């Protein structure tokens, strides 16, 4: 590896990192700038007077606290449900393979969501569940189930059945063996899968857009989108809302980074 | 086909010093075996020669050329890896042809050479197969074919037989030796297996902890080891060692309850009272059922019948002495025996440094 090549490579990586971080940094500065600074030309990168006005604006005046809560509730409940049901199904499919069933479960991920939005809308309206967070919890559970099954089945397949069989010889039921012996072993896999489910649910837009009719069931993405019209965007509010929407993801990425990468790559490489 | 010179190579990996000031010459067309226990640095030495590792200090000379700074692909050496390192997505033909292809050799010429190499290693019928469809022995022959298909400056072997089962290993050993002899390419062969070490090389180099312990023809290294490590490493079962002292007055070597008579020459070389360690190989320990003059008494600790010989461990004094005997001599546990060390096959080492004092 010659010196010039190495230098070029490092430079390229530096450019990539900058290209990734600069826009995010910009958004953060926008959220903290006074209106007059936001429109300054040439743009101000560092030298401006920060203000929290936009953050207080979105939470006090524009109900973003509600959206935040809705997003968090929908994401966490659906993740828990998807994990519970998906792991059970994945375990069963790993130990007693049923290729047909597995194919059906996994193929539901392939459907374009847009195919289901019309019938789902009609179904929810009929059931009186429109504009409710419960609807989103259900939808996101269904959304994440195939993914959970796919990931966890792979991990269970890697685990030899010897341990559960030993536990059952020692007197456990199958469920007890799963709970006490197997699950602790696949904890990192569960963590990675949970992290992904949370991120996917948190970021989801189309279904949330369909379900939400009023502020009651609005999630963060929909709340933000709703403020974006053809003609005018409130820059301060939007950037503050954007930062709020992004922060949990950052936190998660930082905490779960190692697990997520390992989990996704293992799942993908095994295909 | 040139002489290779490794001059004072040093290489460190983190806290470990894999090579310490290591020097070795490989003659033109010679087959040199590098032997040593795991972790002694022999693989590092080989990879440094290949260019896969860069030494921290020292030089590598190919003939007159200093190749220390050169990349592997500029050195024109061929390497046979322990795990064969075949290209999984190419078939046998393409694997063997790869070195020629990257040198942009003309297709008809490349084709001819590949088939010639394949024929030589009995692979003619397998050219369309993929590595995963081959057995271990077949893969190994493909790796060899890939090495011989060009005329490189040197062959580098990294324990190529260690993943084969025992019988195959013995067969391949003979084939390898024959092959190298026919091609006449300078070769460095790394192994931890002594049978390979003894049989394959014209010279044998023993390595320990990054340093060269001894180099010479196998018979010489076997019968005149330069130190206790080499003496104990070569030979199976291993040489017996008894630490003790020279008793000049009684003209004998004393170790615990055992005493072995010494000649005048012995005494002169070793010195009275010197702390020495006696070494004697199992094949040089004589075992009899009745006592004789100067023989040592003992009891059979373990007896293993190998078919062509018996391996005995005899408890004599506070030692357990390994012996090899004729197959007819069948002995039971605890049977009383007498042993004697052949006086003309004794080795003596300085107890503290391990250096050989005799022969």
């Amino acid at each position, binding site marked *: 590896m010659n010196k010039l090549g190495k230098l070029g490579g490092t430079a*390229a*990586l530096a450019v*990539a*990192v900058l290209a*990734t971080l600069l826009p995010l940094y*910009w*958004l953060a500065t926008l959220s903290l700038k006074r209106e007059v600074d936001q*429109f300054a*030309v040439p*743009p101000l990168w560092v030298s401006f007077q920060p203000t929290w006005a936009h953050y207080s604006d979105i939470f006090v005046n524009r109900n973003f606290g509600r959206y935040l809560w809705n997003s968090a509730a929908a994401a966490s409940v659906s993740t828990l449900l998807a994990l519970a*049901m998906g792991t059970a*199904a994945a375990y*069963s499919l790993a*130990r007693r393979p049923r290729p047909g*069933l597995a194919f059906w*479960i996994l193929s*539901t991920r*392939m459907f*374009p969501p*847009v*195919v*289901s939005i*019309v*019938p789902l809308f*009609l*179904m929810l309206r009929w059931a009186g569940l429109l504009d409710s967070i419960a609807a989103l919890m259900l939808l996101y559970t*269904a959304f994440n189930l195939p993914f959970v*099954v796919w990931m966890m089945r792979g991990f269970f397949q890697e685990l030899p059945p010897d341990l559960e069989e030993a536990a059952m010889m020692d007197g456990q039921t199958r469920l007890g063996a799963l709970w006490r012996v197997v699950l602790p072993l696949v904890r990192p896999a569960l963590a990675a899968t949970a992290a992904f489910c949370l991120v996917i649910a948190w*970021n989801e*837009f*189309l279904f949330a857009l369909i379900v939400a009719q009023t502020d009651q069931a609005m999630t963060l*993405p*929909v709340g933000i989108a709703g403020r*974006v019209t053809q003609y005018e*965007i409130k820059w301060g509010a*939007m*950037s503050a809302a954007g930062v709020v*929407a992004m922060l949990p*993801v*950052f936190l998660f*990425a930082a905490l779960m*980074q190692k697990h997520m*990468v390992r989990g*996704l*790559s293992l799942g*993908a*490489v095994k*295909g | 086909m040139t002489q290779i010179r490794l001059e004072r190579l040093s290489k460190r990996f983190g806290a470990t010093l894999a090579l310490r000031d290591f020097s070795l010459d490989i003659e033109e067309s010679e087959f040199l075996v590098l032997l040593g226990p795991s972790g002694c640095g022999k693989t590092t030495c080989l990879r440094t020669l290949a*260019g896969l590792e860069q030494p921290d200090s020292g030089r590598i000379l190919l003939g007159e050329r200093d190749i220390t700074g050169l990349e592997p*692909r500029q050195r024109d050496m*061929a390497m046979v*890896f322990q795990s064969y*390192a*075949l*290209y*999984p*997505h190419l078939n046998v033909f393409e694997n063997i042809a*790869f070195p020629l292809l*990257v040198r942009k050799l003309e297709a008809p010429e490349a084709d001819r050479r590949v088939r010639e190499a394949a024929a030589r290693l009995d692979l003619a019928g397998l050219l369309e197969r993929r590595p995963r469809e081959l057995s271990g022995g077949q893969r190994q022959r493909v790796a060899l074919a*890939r090495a011989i298909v060009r005329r490189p400056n040197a062959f580098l072997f990294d324990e190529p037989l260690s993943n084969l089962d025992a019988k195959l290993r013995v067969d391949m050993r003979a084939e390898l030796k024959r092959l190298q002899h026919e091609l006449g390419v300078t070769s460095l062969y790394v192994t931890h297996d002594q049978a390979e070490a003894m049989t394959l090389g014209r010279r044998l180099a023993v390595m320990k902890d990054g340093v060269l312990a001894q180099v010479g023809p196998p018979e010489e290294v076997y019968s005149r080891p330069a130190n206790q490590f080499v003496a104990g490493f070569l030979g199976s079962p291993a040489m017996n060692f008894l630490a003790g002292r020279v008793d000049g007055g009684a003209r004998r070597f004393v170790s615990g309850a055992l005493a072995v008579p010494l000649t005048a020459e012995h005494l002169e070389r070793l010195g009275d009272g010197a702390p020495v360690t006696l070494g004697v190989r199992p094949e040089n320990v004589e075992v009899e059922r009745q006592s004789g003059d100067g023989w040592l008494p003992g009891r059979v600790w373990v007896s293993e019948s190998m078919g062509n010989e018996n391996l005995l461990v005899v408890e004599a004094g506070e030692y357990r002495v390994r012996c090899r005997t004729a197959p007819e001599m069948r002995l039971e546990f605890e049977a009383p025996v007498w042993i004697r060390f052949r006086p003309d096959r004794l080795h003596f080492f300085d107890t503290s440094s391990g250096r050989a004092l005799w022969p």
Partner: protein
Amino acid sequence: MTARRSEAGWLAWTAPALLVLGALSIYPLLFAVEISLRTAGGYGLDHFRRLAADRLFLVSLGQTLLYTAAALALEFALGLALALLVNREFRLRRLVRAVLLIPMLLPPVVVAVLWRLILNPEFGVLNGTLRGWGLETRGLTWVAAENTALLSVILVDVWQWTPFLFLLLLAGLQGLPVEPFEAAVVDGASRWQVFRRLTLPMLRPVIAIAVLLRGMDLLRVFDQIFILTQGGPGFATETVTLYIYRTAFRFHNFGYAAAMSFVLLAATTTVARAFLRLLRQQPA
């Protein structure tokens, strides 16, 4: 425990998942079939017939394919380049990888809002910086101009989703065995030859999966276009999903929208199937 009892036991483990998926993924699909076939006088293929003549639909389909092809090509090339760069050993490697992954984890809506702000022709930081360097930006209206809208939207997609391909390709690279690469350099191959003859062929399965997954997601793109351009200006960035949404929830034409979504489903499945078949034919 009889064999039949244990079979039932195993099925019970999958029951909750099957129930949820059945109700919320499969049933809606069947329901959608029904809706798409509902016409004024009972059932019929009216919607589909209308679809075949709908020029706007075909345009949106064409734009979707163009969008997919362009974004995929760029994301693959950049993702591969990044994966190769990050695959070497160097300090801060973990950190760099973590940073590069961030965009794909962000809500697409937020990313779209962010870039809409950046690309704002008058006050956005992109034009602002260009102007600061003395360049003329009057003609550069990015998402507001017909000829640059699609490009801008594609670039936003590339910014957000290159990390996805980067991640998969990096995982693939790291899963490759080391020894054949050592053998290749000893055999005399140059860096380019190693890349072309070893790296790429051995990566083929991972590349295929990556391209397939991302390709299918691209065909269904919605979130960022909704925010960035709403399909405009005019029809310049209208993708199929956007058209379907508009038909269903602006014009309240559920039947027609359902029919369209099936065509989309058919298109995606066909592409996926063709792709997989192509993959299986070539020697792995």
